């Protein structure tokens, strides 16, 4: 079956492109049920983006939920592979509360998970696929990468307790240096460590430059191993057309109760917020009783609406064929068939709806088709 490219919406095109991309790298599709037992989410509520879950009671009395998240279900269904990797991708709808309307909305997600014995190559591959996912959507994109263990290391050295720690993390996510300084002063933190944190927050640039400038800070010795990991992965990414699009940015903050190591966030020019989010979630794996590591990401396709230009689908049909009572229906059928065979979009109507957009307007007469507009 040949499907015209112009018929597909941006999100539909993206789904096809991303599924094809992930398949090329050995990821297999993971199809799941729309529903999941509510208990799974009740146990991992903090992991979810929003607290509320759409629930219903199944015929057997079990409390079920419409999936607010995909990763938890994949972990639940994946077997332990301590010395190998399980690579899956998915294309699913999730149901979450919208921040703006405060009501549930259906969000289309495409993403992948890589679960098992993670090494530098597996992490590089996921980051490369994240960058390539953004490239499928627009050539003008940026993938921000952070290393959560480094951020945690600095927070530990500052001696921040739970409440201040949460406030500091919020400030880091906002690149709010004034806020960080204020909080550090309130806990009488060491000035040098505070300045190291400020340096990390201000960082936003290519991996090579960023890692080099961080290495110059003698205090970064404490997280030499994590910097080394970033460097090894950056070297693999460096040698590709993707490298100009990849930045180190420590303001990418995911929940530290679940995430560890590399976390990342993707942006596309024209969309005001992050369209891709992911990271290593070893801590979530542990919480769910798994011993292996994992990394994954999701692309939020509903944001692609921002990329629609007003000229997209300017017309509802190429040609409108108007007919009336008594029209010879064979003439009408043949006229419509000729146009559709020529790959035109044809609307056969008795009268023209208000605001209907078309290129050509025709009326069926006794002796044939007359163009009237």
């Amino acid at each position, binding site marked *: 079956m040949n499907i015209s490219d112009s018929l597909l919406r941006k999100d539909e095109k993206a789904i096809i492109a991303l599924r094809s991309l992930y398949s090329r790298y050995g990821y297999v599709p993971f199809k799941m049920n729309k529903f999941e037992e509510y208990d799974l989410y009740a146990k991992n509520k903090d992991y979810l983006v929003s607290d509320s879950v759409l629930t219903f009671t199944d015929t057997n009395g079990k409390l079920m939920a419409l999936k607010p998240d995909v990763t938890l279900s994949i972990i639940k269904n994946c077997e332990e592979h301590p010395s190998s990797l399980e690579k899956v991708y998915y294309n699913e709808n999730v149901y979450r509360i919208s921040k703006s309307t405060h009501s549930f909305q259906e969000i289309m997600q495409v993403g992948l998970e890589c679960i098992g014995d993670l090494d530098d190559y597996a992490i590089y591959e996921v980051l490369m696929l994240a960058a390539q996912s953004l490239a499928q959507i627009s050539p003008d994109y*940026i993938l921000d990468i952070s290393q959560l263990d480094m951020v945690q290391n600095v927070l530990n050295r500052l001696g921040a307790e739970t409440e201040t720690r949460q406030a500091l993390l919020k400030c880091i996510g906002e*690149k709010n*240096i*004034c806020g960080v300084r204020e909080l550090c002063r309130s806990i009488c933190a060491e000035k040098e460590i505070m300045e190291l944190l400020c340096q990390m927050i201000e960082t*936003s640039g290519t991996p090579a430059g960023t890692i080099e400038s961080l290495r110059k800070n003698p205090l970064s010795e404490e997280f030499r191993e994590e910097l080394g990991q970033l460097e090894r992965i950056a070297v693999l990414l460096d040698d590709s057309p993707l490298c100009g699009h990849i930045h180190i940015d420590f303001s990418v903050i995911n929940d530290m109760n679940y995430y560890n190591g590399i976390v990342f966030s993707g*942006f596309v020019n024209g*969309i*005001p*917020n*992050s369209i891709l989010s992911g990271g290593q979630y070893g801590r979530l794996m542990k919480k769910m009783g798994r011993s292996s590591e994992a990394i994954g990401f999701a692309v939020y396709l509903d944001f692609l609406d921002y990329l629609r230009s007003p000229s997209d689908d300017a017309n509802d049909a190429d040609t409108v064929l108007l007919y009336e009572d008594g029209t010879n229906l064979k003439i009408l059928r043949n006229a419509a068939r000729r146009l559709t065979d020529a790959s035109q979009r044809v609307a056969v109507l008795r009268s023209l709806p208000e605001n209907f957009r078309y290129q050509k307007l025709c009326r069926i007469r006794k002796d044939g088709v007359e163009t009237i507009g």
Partner: protein
Amino acid sequence: MDNMLNIALPKGRLGERVYDMFENAGFSCPSIRETNRKLIFENEEIHVRYFWVKPSDVAIYVERGAADVGVAGKDILLEYEPDVYELLDMKTGKCRMAVAAKKGFHDDTQRTLRVATKFSNIASRFYLSKSRNIDIIRLNGSIELAPILGLSDVIVDIVETGTTLKENNLEVVEEIVPVSARLISNKASYKFKNERISRILRELSGQVGESR
């Protein structure tokens, strides 16, 4: 996103003061000083576009990407928690978020405290941190009337000089947080218009004595 740098400024005196700072930073737009009812002003030479918006709306314009950067009060950022970068304390528009009540007010902890405010999230968080049970009465203006008429026990509101409170026989009972104007940026714009946003940040930081 177009090539223009879109800047949302809060209407009013604060906005005018803040515009001066942007102008000194090299992002001038002379037409903004003309007296008219226009809301959008452009300087095509340096690809900059300003708009005046209601102060409480600046963060929404920036979060949704209609503006790349903007200036919003810390009160608004604390209340709505928009997903934006908060790049600089501009050290202007200084005031404080405070709890105020009728002079001589005594908090009877045996009953729920009735709090009138525009800032329900800030008030809820503040009293939650003190484990105090409250009833929020959401008002949109003339908050000071509420305790006078017995609608509430206290108010949570912005206090600048304290004159309005004083003239209505009210006083500050507790300070919640100091407030000032903040330079905020849309997260995606910060990536794709980074050179210009970084320049604004550097220049404005210099003006307020912050090193960058």
